[in-house]
């Protein structure tokens, strides 16, 4: 019996129970659609993360204060007061792999402009910070080294702050109040988006001279962090070692004791973020695969019902000369047609869903051809796997018993 004839018989059998066939297919449609959409979303996230990290500069190192173990408890960043401005100068002086460094202090405050106010993070640093982070300005410019020396009341604002406080008004030259002190806005940073590594809105920030923040707002003279750029991406690992041993030395940490600071290499963070995005993809794909398996079980269920219902037909076919193989093939092909048609519709809805999701999130659209091929192969495999048992059951029937079946 040729395959075309069997496929025609299968199609006809399925068309006879349109509602049932489409509901069965729905399981596969959702499964395949979910796999494709989830893999695409995962890969989109991965690429998004890579792009963001590339934009951040992968030769950057972040030196944070704190993370010291006290009585077995690990303290968070900023819990110690040991990181100081002189440490930064020493890093610049004594670490050959380091190109530039900017000190950082941090606070949060309520910011007021006219009738609008906004709670945001206030960072204090020096102008080279913007170069290290390769962070351009959309309006105005950075404050100057002179502003730092004078502890001037000037501020650079991020895009989120601009949107919330100023709307359509040009912020440059306007005065805002931070913790009730007046600050002149000198520049607006270009939007950077959500950080893939930290998962926070990088544009929700105000940056002021570090001296201003330390003297007029926090009253603290130690640093929260130092942002360092290495001379190259490769050199960032060397820089990490040089900074670590220098700071241990300066902070008089004996061997065996934990650091009272941490050095994070963004190349590491990039790898980590990439790894996380990969894991995320795998996780999403596995969850989606489960729905494909559930769809397959649906096929098996319907095929079993169908085999029972059509016992008499099976008996007739066998009595007039169908072999076990013929009957098995017929039901197997029916299951495969179900899953493949479901798979085809699933691919279309999966691709549609991927576009929708990635568009909404503003990520690059990445419909993975691998995912599509995998979905087709997988849904066919599901059809064969879950169709096999019912088909086998049909083929094993005794023709006489089957003909007697009421």
């Amino acid at each position, binding site marked *: *019996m040729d395959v075309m004839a069997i496929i025609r018989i299968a199609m006809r059998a399925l068309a006879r129970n349109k509602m049932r066939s489409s509901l069965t297919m729905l399981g596969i449609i959702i499964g395949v659609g979910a796999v494709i959409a989830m893999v695409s979303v995962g890969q989109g996230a991965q690429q998004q993360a890579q792009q963001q990290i590339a934009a951040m500069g992968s030769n950057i190192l972040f030196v944070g204060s704190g993370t010291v173990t006290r009585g077995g408890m690990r303290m968070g960043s900023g819990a110690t007061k040991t990181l100081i401005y002189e440490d930064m100068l020493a890093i610049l002086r004594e670490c050959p792999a380091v190109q530039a460094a900017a000190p950082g202090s941090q606070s949060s405050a309520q910011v007021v402009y006219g009738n609008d106010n906004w709670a945001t993070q206030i960072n204090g640093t020096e102008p080279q910070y913007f170069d290290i982070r390769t962070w351009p300005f959309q309006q105005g410019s950075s404050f100057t080294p002179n502003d730092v020396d004078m502890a001037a009341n000037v501020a650079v604002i991020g895009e989120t702050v601009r949107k919330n406080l100023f709307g359509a008004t040009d912020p440059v030259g306007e005065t805002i109040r931070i913790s009730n002190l007046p600050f002149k806005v000198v520049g607006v940073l270009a939007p950077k988006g959500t950080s893939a590594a930290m998962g926070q809105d990088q544009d929700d920030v105000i940056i002021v001279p570090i001296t201003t923040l330390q003297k007029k707002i926090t009253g603290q003279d130690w640093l929260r962090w130092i942002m360092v750029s290495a001379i190259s991406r490769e050199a960032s690992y060397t820089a990490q070692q040089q900074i670590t041993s220098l700071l241990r030395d300066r902070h008089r940490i004996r061997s065996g004791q934990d650091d009272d600071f941490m050095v994070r290499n963004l190349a590491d963070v990039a790898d980590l973020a990439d790894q996380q995005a990969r894991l995320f993809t795998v996780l999403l794909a596995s969850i989606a695969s489960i729905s494909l398996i559930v769809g397959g079980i649906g096929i098996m269920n319907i095929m079993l019902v169908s085999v029972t219902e059509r016992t008499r037909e099976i008996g007739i076919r*066998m*009595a*007039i*000369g169908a*072999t076990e*193989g*013929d009957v098995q093939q017929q039901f197997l092909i029916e299951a495969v047609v179900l899953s493949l048609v479901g798979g085809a519709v699933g691919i279309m809805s999966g691709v549609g869903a991927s576009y929708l999701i990635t568009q909404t999130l503003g990520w690059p659209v990445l419909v993975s051809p691998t995912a599509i091929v995998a979905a087709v192969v997988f849904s066919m495999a599901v059809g064969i796997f879950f169709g096999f048992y019912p088909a086998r059951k049909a083929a094993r029937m005794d023709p006489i018993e089957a*003909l007697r079946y009421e």
Partner: protein
Amino acid sequence: MATISQPDVHVNAPGAHGTIIEIDDVHKYYDLGETRVHALRGVSLQIERGEFVAIMGASGSGKSTFMNILGCLDKPTSGRYLLEGIEASSLSKKELAAIRNRKIGFVFQGFNLLSRTTALENVELPTLYAHISKEESRKRSEQALQLVGLGDRTMHFPSQLSGGQQQRVAIARGLVNRPSILLADEPTGNLDSRTSVEIMDIFQRLNGDGLTVVLVTHEPDVAQFAKRSIEFRDGKIRRDEPIHDRPIAADVLKNMPTLED
């Protein structure tokens, strides 16, 4: 199985002779837990090529059981069955399927047509398993339907056909692969007397063309059209005799009132 795949010429070769069916001391039990139903208790029989045998007997006497064994649908519990000289029990399931497909035409007690499938497609069914080209299969099926007088009902579904018409579709299906034996289990079971005679006319004509016909019936009126009559009782053959001066169904039909009268 060279003998199976050879094109069958018997239908068109009335001269061919020899034993086609040989049954030797066949028993059939059905085990139903504690009880055992003894459906056939030692049946021996020979049927020559070109014979037309009517099997009679009370309900439960084992006629259908016997036909199923002849049709290679079922196997005897003991005893031998030679079909064209070949021991049926020595054949694989696949070979048996091929025999059912090409050597034997089976008309079931109850029509056993596929519902929601047209008459033509029902008739075509056996050709699907016979490796025949699509065109040839369509041609043969139309011919078979014409032979049973249903050339104008090819696209009807079984539910749109009368009992007699459904029975003819079943007969056409039995003939489409040009078998050498036609086995019919109560082909006139629920039909009126005129339709029964019409069916017997078809059988007589096919038999005249060389087809070996074995038919089960309750009705002596139907059995009289055969050449040989066998009676079953309690799983055994009680009587086996030739029929002399059998009527020709076509002549009987001429003297019968038609439906319109």
